[in-house]
């Protein structure tokens, strides 16, 4: 007979047993499990999966009334009382240790307030474009040139039509063509500045805008139709109905965004003819990333092409920054399908294009536009998602710091609570009960913090709205009920995160140890808590160094020496008028000491680069700033001519240019005089420009964008001028202003007089950096305060615990000063460790951003040293009061006190 080795015993599926144990009455379990096991054994000839299956089958057959346990009855018991007790003890602990509670609640509240602001921002931004019914099916096409990191929000003109024709997955498409902005004038004399798009009929099929007046199916159908915002309608027609009215439109090439610090250059007003108002739209009702005052029917374009008022790009695939394309896909088309289709399209159109080969067409869902990744050429300026990541990281650092305070202080207090833990355990509390209890306490603290954070929000919100940036970014930070519910969940999560570690540690005490109050922590050794504190201070040092650096950079930019006269200079946009006429009129005003004209105002945000070479099509070209100015410009701004002659007016001298010293050096002249009369070529053009004179270097760049030590070329081309610069004597400025205004009214009856003080323009152009400084400084300040509070808490706790030791040492003859040093030593170690870790890190990280500024301060060891010193001083100051008071206490008090 063959010997058969017994099969190894296969255990029944564990999960099935656990499931059975979960629902079956306890008293039946043993018999049932026994039978099931035996049955399982009987099946040993069957394949394993079959055995398992049968086993499960039989387990499920126990789901019968007789066997299922009564779930309700078992849970009722006395849980309510237990939770009530936890809650009560939690509250008592908060009130008993007021200092600690304050440190915890305040720290968490501050961190929460910052987080809440960011949540509010994100909620607000997320609301954009949600009113569109088809939002999930609508995509905007972005174009990205090869080797460029940033995609453009715009795309080529023919794209939308071609996509609809070639790909059935694209159901509809619409195209918004910017580049229409100017004055709408009604025959009754009312005037409004309008900026907007050419839009086609499909616009309303994709987007869910409704018209307040007019029929949206035909509003954009016929040529010369215009839809205006209700605001513009009121300006033009007051309360009368706008539909069917006609207006005269003259285009001034105004851009979409109204950032009015007078930086951009303006184009001459061109009469585009008469338009009929076919619709009025209440834009305030829609939260859309598309902003406009007016939409003009695309069918108007052929006429404008013919009149040569708009460049015809209808078939141009080369120009990818002309319009915004929105595609609506058919039901069931995935984003990936569209992605593939666009790839194909880009491939077929650009494969053989030398300049644009590798251009990518990318799709972005409407939901991901605001907030979305940074794109060039956006319709409206919004904080890109990357900025939110930075803000979120900063907020998280503060939050972590506050949570660490809680963790740290809770563990430190473990000893005082060990008796309670012991008693609870002896009475029969399981570990999970204790974990729950401690978590409940941290959640109570977190909810208190939430209340306080909401109070803080009242302070932060107005401050934030006061920032210049929020004017442009237009945040709406009002919270609704849902957001508050979100806050509550957020605070619960924070409470659990802050409390989980101490809860796990404290609940792990064995009752014996807890009751005997065994202290296995030696006074000098803090271990885990030390690491926490050190990392907090490392962050703080990083923040301190960054703040110092940001402030220094800010001052550096503010103190920037432009090298030209910016005081008492008014820049007046000519708004389509003849600059010569304005100059003549303005010159007659007493108090005006100089008048000049220019294309755009130097050192503000607008720049105009051009390549310069000494020969036609020379390989060795370099980039220079190129500004058109009149003959008076150099004198008016107090620039000095160091060689040659100034620019003169007149067509024959239009090819004369002024250059700065750097240009001369870059062109390779040793002697400045040798450069006079030399021809140069711009942008590879064939027309020679002659160097008429050389001016001293001055800073024509905005300090944030560059240090202004670049080659510069000035040329007198009156047709491009859009600003008149008026210099006046400082004595009677207000008089001059009112005179200027009345002179303006004589020349231009339509446009209101606009002017900008040059020095104010300059400081405004750097203001966003000031905002940045304020935000970073504020966050740094909070981080440091929270960390110091945590340190204070630790100092209080640890010194209180050592009062007896201090008393004995004192009796034995130690002096107060010696004791202070003894107690302070461990804290000093933490601070030094933090500095050692953080100093190199903050040097490296700060250099990363600083390098993006061409015009920057020196950043060396000095800043780090100052930062470290501040950290040390702050840290020591925080704990010194506590240390000194404990060290100098009368030993009889501390020793008597048992």
């Amino acid at each position, binding site marked *: 007979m063959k010997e058969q080795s017994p099969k190894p015993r296969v255990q029944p599926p564990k999960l099935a047993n656990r499931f059975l144990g979960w629902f079956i009455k306890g008293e039946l379990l043993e*018999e049932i*499990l*026994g039978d099931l096991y*035996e*049955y399982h*054994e009987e099946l040993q000839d069957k394949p394993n999966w079959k055995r398992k299956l049968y086993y499960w089958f039989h387990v499920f057959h126990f789901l*019968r009334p*007789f*066997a299922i346990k009564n779930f309700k009855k078992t849970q009722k018991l006395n849980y309510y009382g237990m939770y009530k007790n936890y809650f009560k003890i939690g509250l008592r602990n908060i009130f008993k240790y007021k200092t600690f509670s304050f440190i915890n609640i305040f720290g968490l509240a501050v961190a929460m307030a910052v987080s809440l602001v960011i949540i509010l921002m994100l909620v607000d931004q997320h609301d954009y474009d949600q009113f569109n019914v088809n939002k999930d099916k609508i995509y905007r096409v972005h174009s990205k040139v090869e080797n460029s990191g940033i995609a453009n929000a715009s795309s080529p003109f023919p794209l939308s039509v071609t996509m609809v024709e070639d790909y059935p997955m694209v159901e509809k498409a619409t195209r918004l063509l910017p580049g229409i902005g100017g004055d709408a004038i009604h025959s009754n004399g009312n005037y409004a500045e309008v900026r907007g798009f050419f839009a086609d009929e499909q616009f309303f099929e994709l987007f869910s805008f409704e018209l307040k007046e007019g029929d949206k199916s035909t509003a954009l159908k016929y040529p010369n139709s215009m839809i205006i915002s209700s605001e513009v309608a009121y300006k033009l027609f007051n309360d009368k109905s706008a539909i069917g009215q006609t207006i005269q439109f003259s285009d001034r090439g105004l851009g979409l965004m109204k950032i009015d610090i007078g930086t951009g250059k303006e184009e001459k007003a061109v009469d585009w003819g008469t338009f009929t108002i076919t619709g009025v739209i209440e834009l305030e009702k829609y939260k859309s990333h598309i902003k406009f005052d007016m939409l003009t029917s695309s069918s108007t374009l052929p006429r404008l092409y013919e009149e040569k008022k708009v460049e015809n790009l209808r078939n141009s695939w080369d120009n990818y920054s002309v319009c915004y394309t929105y595609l609506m896909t058919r039901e069931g088309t995935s984003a990936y399908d569209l992605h593939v289709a666009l790839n194909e399209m880009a491939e077929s159109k650009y494969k053989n294009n030398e300049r644009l080969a590798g251009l990518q067409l990318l799709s972005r869902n409407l939901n991901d536009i605001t907030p979305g990744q940074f794109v060039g050429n956006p319709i409206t300026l919004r904080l890109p998602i990357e900025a939110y990541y930075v803000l979120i990281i900063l907020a998280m650092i503060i939050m972590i710091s506050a949570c660490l305070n809680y963790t740290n202080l809770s563990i430190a207090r473990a000893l005082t609570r060990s008796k309670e833990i012991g008693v609870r355990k002896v009475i029969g509390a399981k570990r999970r009960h204790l974990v729950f209890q401690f978590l409940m306490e941290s959640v109570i603290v977190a909810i208190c913090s939430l209340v306080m954070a909401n109070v803080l929000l009242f302070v932060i919100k107005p401050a934030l709205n006061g920032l210049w940036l929020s004017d442009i970014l237009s945040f709406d930070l009002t919270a609704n009920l849902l957001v508050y519910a979100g806050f509550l969940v957020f605070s619960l999560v924070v409470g659990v995160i802050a409390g989980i570690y101490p809860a796990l540690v404290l609940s792990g005490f064995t009752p014996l140890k807890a009751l005997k109050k065994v202290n296995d922590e030696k006074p000098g050794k803090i271990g885990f808590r030390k690491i926490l504190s050190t990392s907090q201070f490392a962050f703080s040092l990083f923040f301190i160094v960054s703040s110092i650096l940001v402030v220094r950079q800010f001052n550096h930019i503010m103190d920037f020496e432009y090298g030209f006269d910016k005081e008492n200079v008014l820049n007046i946009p000519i708004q389509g008028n003849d600059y010569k006429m304005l100059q003549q009129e303005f010159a007659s005003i007493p108090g005006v000491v100089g008048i000049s004209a220019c294309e755009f105002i130097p050192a503000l945000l607008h720049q105009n680069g051009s390549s310069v070479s000494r020969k036609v099509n020379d390989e060795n070209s370099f980039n220079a700033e190129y500004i058109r100015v009149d003959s008076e410009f150099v004198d008016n701004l107090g620039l000095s001519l160091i060689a040659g002659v100034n620019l003169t007016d007149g067509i024959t001298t239009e090819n004369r240019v002024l250059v700065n010293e750097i240009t001369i050096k870059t062109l390779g002249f040793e002697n400045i005089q040798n450069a006079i009369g030399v021809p140069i070529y711009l942008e590879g053009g064939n027309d020679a420009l002659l160097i008429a004179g050389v001016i001293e270097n001055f800073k024509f760049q905005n300090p944030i964008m560059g240090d202004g030590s670049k080659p510069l070329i000035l040329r007198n081309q009156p047709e491009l001028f859009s600003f008149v610069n008026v210099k006046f004597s400082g004595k009677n400025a207000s008089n001059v202003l009112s005179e200027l205004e009345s002179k303006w009214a004589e020349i231009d009856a339509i446009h209101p007089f606009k002017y900008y003080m040059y020095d104010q323009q300059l400081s405004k152009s750097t203001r966003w950096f000031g905002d940045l400084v304020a935000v970073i400084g504020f966050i740094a300040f909070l981080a440091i305060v929270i960390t110091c509070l945590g340190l204070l808490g630790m100092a209080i706790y640890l010194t209180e615990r050592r009062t007896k030791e201090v008393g004995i040492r004192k009796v034995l003859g130690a002096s107060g000063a010696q004791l202070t040093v003894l107690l302070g030593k461990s804290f000093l170690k933490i601070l030094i460790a933090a500095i050692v870790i953080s100093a190199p890190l903050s040097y490296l990280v700060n250099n990363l951003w600083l390098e993006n500024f061409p015009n920057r301060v020196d950043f060396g060891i000095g800043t780090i040293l100052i930062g470290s010193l501040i950290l040390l001083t702050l840290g020591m100051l925080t704990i010194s009061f506590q240390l000194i008071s404990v060290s100098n206490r009368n030993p009889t008090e501390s020793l008597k006190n048992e």
Partner: protein
Amino acid sequence: MKDTNLGAFEELVLLAVGSLDENAYGVAIKDALEAQSGRSPSIGALHSALYRLEDKGFLSSKEGGATTERGGRRKKYYTLSGTGREALIKAHDLRMAFSQKIPGLNFNID
């Protein structure tokens, strides 16, 4: 008054317990049922019936020896109680009495 009727499946279980005498516990009863009737009830159904029968007083039980096959768990042995026996006899009599009234049905009891 408790329902002391005997269902068809209950009757079978009762018979099986009786036939196994001293050795009637869960799996053994199941095997006996399978051998005799060809029916293979789920363990759950069997336990449900046993539970009901014990509740009605037809069965009594006691706990007994554990084996390794059972993962060291004790068996629960069932025995017929007096009322159980009576119920079986009653059920049998009822069946006989009825079936004899069926014309042409011959049970061949010698």
